[in-house]
C-alpha cells in the first residue's frame, strides 16, 4: 500500500464524488451560458440551479426558497451573522461558544471591537456546552446566538435545536455553522427553530468554492454581497452554476449514503479508535464519545508532539491532522482542546482522524500498524516519556 494515499482528513476537505464531477462537467464545457441571459442558451441553465436548490432543500428538510448559494462556509457564516445583527440594530449582544470555527470566532472578535458584547459559552472536559449557561448568557439585549452544530476537531454534536428555542424565548436570532454535520447526521429543519444555517460544499464531496446559507422563511435578510439581483437579491454575483449543480448532486448522494455513514463509516471509526486506544498506552479520546458525528475521532497521545506524528504518517502516505500548535505556525495548541482543558501534556500530541464513505477496513488496519511504531519512536525521543 506504499504508493497509495490513505486519506483520513475529511473534516478538512473531501474528495469530489465521481458522480458529482460527472454532473457538473457539462456546465464547465457545454452549458456555459449565464442563467440571467435572455437567450435560451443561457436561460436553460437556470433550471439546473433550481434543481440544485431542491436537492439541498430535500437533504435539509427545508423549502427551496430558503436556500441561498454562496461561495463557501465562511461567506455563509459572515452573511448570516451580519444580517442577524442588522435585523436587530438595538440589541448589542452576541452569544457564541469557545469552540466555534475561526469563521465565527474571528468575526465576533471584530464585532467586539465595534462595540458588541460577545460572550463565548465555555465547554466542559468532554467539550459539551451546558444549556443552563446558555440560558444565563442570553437576555433581551442578545441579537444573535451562533453555536456550531458539530465541532470540526472533536466531532462533538451540540444541541442546536434546543439552543434555538432558548434563543427565541428571548427574541434572539439563532444561527448554526453546520459545515461538519450536514451529510453526516440526519437533519430536518422543518421541525426546528433554527433561523440561519451554513454549509460548505467541499466537506460534502462537492468541490471547493461553493457554500449554502439557509434562511428560514419569514426571516428578514440583509445581503452581504451587494450587486445584481441573483439569488432573489440575497447574494449578488453570477451564479457558480457548475458548483451549484455539484453541491445539489452531492446533497442527493449524502442523503442516499446517510445510513451507510451512520453504520459502516461509524463502525470503521470505532474500530480504528478502539484498536489505537487498546494498543497505545497513555492515549485517550478528546471529545464526547456518546455524542459525535460518526466519522471523527480525536486522540491524544501523552508526551509527544502532533506535528511530528503527522510528518511521519505523511511519509507513510497517511493524511491526517492535529490540534498541535506547530502544525499551523501558531504557538498554542488548538483553541478547542484548550477550551476543554485538555492538559498540555497531551494537547500538543493530539491527532484527528476523520473518515469518509471511501475508507476501507484495510486502510484502518494500515493506519493502526503504521501509527503504533510512530508513537513508540517519538516517545523514545521524548525527554518526558517514562516507560
Amino acid at each position, binding site marked *: 500500500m506504499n504508493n497509495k494515499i490513505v486519506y483520513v482528513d475529511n473534516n478538512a476537505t473531501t474528495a469530489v464524488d465521481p458522480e458529482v464531477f460527472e454532473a457538473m462537467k457539462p456546465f464547465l464545457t457545454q452549458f456555459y451560458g449565464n442563467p440571467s441571459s435572455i437567450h435560451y442558451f443561457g436561460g436553460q441553465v437556470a433550471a439546473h440551479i433550481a434543481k440544485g436548490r431542491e436537492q439541498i432543500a430535500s437533504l435539509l428538510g427545508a423549502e427551496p426558497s430558503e436556500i441561498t448559494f454562496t461561495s463557501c462556509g465562511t461567506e455563509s457564516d459572515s452573511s448570516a451573522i451580519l444580517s442577524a445583527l442588522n435585523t436587530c440594530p438595538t440589541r448589542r449582544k452576541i452569544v457564541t461558544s469557545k469552540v466555534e470555527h475561526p469563521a465565527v470566532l474571528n468575526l465576533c472578535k471584530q464585532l467586539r471591537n465595534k462595540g458588541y458584547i460577545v460572550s463565548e459559552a465555555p465547554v466542559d472536559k468532554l467539550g459539551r456546552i451546558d444549556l443552563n449557561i446558555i440560558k444565563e448568557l442570553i437576555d433581551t439585549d442578545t441579537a444573535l446566538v451562533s453555536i456550531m452544530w458539530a465541532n470540526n476537531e472533536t466531532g462533538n454534536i451540540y444541541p442546536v435545536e434546543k439552543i434555538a428555542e432558548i434563543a427565541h424565548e428571548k427574541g434572539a436570532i439563532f444561527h448554526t455553522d453546520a459545515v461538519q454535520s450536514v451529510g453526516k447526521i440526519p437533519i430536518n429543519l422543518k421541525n426546528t427553530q433554527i433561523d440561519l444555517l451554513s454549509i460548505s460544499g467541499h466537506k460534502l464531496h462537492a468541490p471547493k468554492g461553493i457554500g449554502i446559507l439557509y434562511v428560514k422563511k419569514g426571516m428578514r435578510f440583509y445581503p452581504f454581497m451587494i450587486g445584481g439581483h441573483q439569488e432573489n437579491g440575497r447574494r449578488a454575483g453570477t451564479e457558480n452554476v457548475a458548483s451549484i449543480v455539484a453541491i445539489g448532486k452531492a446533497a442527493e448522494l449524502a442523503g442516499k449514503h446517510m445510513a451507510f455513514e451512520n453504520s459502516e463509516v461509524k463502525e470503521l471509526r470505532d474500530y480504528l479508535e478502539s484498536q489505537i486506544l487498546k494498543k497505545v498506552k497513555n492515549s485517550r479520546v478528546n471529545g464526547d464519545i456518546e455524542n459525535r458525528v460518526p466519522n471523527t475521532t480525536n486522540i491524544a497521545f501523552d508526551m509527544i*508532539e502532533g506535528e511530528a506524528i503527522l510528518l511521519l504518517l505523511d511519509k507513510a502516505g497517511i493524511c491526517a491532522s492535529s490540534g498541535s500548535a*506547530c502544525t499551523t505556525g*501558531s504557538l498554542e495548541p488548538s483553541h478547542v482542546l484548550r477550551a476543554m482543558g485538555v492538559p498540555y501534556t497531551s494537547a500538543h500530541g493530539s491527532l484527528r482522524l476523520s473518515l469518509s464513505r471511501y475508507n476501507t477496513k484495510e486502510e484502518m488496519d494500515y493506519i493502526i500498524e503504521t501509527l503504533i511504531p510512530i508513537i513508540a519512536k517519538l516517545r523514545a*525521543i521524548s*525527554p518526558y516519556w517514562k516507560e
Partner: protein
Amino acid sequence: MWNYTEKVMDHFLNPRNVGDIEKPDGEATVGNISCGDALKLSFKLDSNGKIAEVKFKTFGCGSAIASSSILTEMVKGKTLEDAEKITNKDIVDALGGLPEEKIHCSVMGMEALQAAIANYRGVEYVQDEDDHHGRVVCHCFGVTDSKIRKLAKDNNIKSVEGITNYCKAGGACGRCKNDIKEILDGIWKSEVNSEKSDSSSSMTFTQKVIKIQSVIDGEIRPMLERDGGNIEFIDLKGDIVVVKLKGRCAMCPSASVTLRNSVEGKLKEIVSPDLKVEELK
C-alpha cells in the same frame, strides 16, 4: 504545510545520538511541555577536554527534533570553548534553513548547549549577565526583556513577529506585543540617535503628565492587574511621580520591589530616565 529542507527531514526521520548518558559531565533540559517543545542534552568529555559523547531527547515538532539532532553532530569532537561559540544561526545554516516560524527550535538548541556547558562548569545558566534583573515580558512563555534585547541585537531583529519567531514571546495571548515593540523601538531608535533623554527633558509639564498617565494605563496597570493589583497616578512633583498602589499590591510585602523595578523601570524606560517613583501611603 511546512517547507522543510531535505536536511531537516533527514535529521527528523533519522535522528542521530538519541538518548541519555548515564554519568554525563554536563546535562541540561530547556523548554517545557506546556510551551510545546523541550530539549534534554547531555555530554561526556574525553581526556583532552573534547566532547566525546553527546545525546539528546526532544519533545517537539519535526524541526525541533532535527535541530537537536544536527546540534549533536556539530558539537562532537569540539572543546567546550569551541562548542559554546555555536549560535542558533549556525544550527539553521547547518540544516539548510528553517521556516521563519520555526527559528525558535534552533534557539532552543543553542540554549540547551549553553546550559549543559554551564552545568558542567558548576555555574548557574543565565542567558546573559543581567538576566536576573530581567523583567518577564511574555508571561505565556516566560521570556524576559533582557532575553528579547539580546536576541534583537544578536540577530538584528526589528519586528515583533521576528521576536516571536525566535523565542515565541508574543505568540500566544499577544498581550505583550506592545511591550516588545517598545523594547525594540528603544534599541533601534537609541542606536539611530540618542536624543531620547533630550526629548523627555524638552517635554512640557503637561506633556510629561499625559505621557506618564498613558504608560500607567497602557503598560503598568495591565501588568499589576494580572496579579490582582492596581495603581493610581496621583501627582508629579518635579521628577517625582507619586502613585497609590491598590488591590493586592497595597497589601503586598514586595510592593516596594514592584514599585522600583516594574513601575519606576517602565517610566524611566519610556518617559524619562530622571523619573523617580514614590508611593502615597
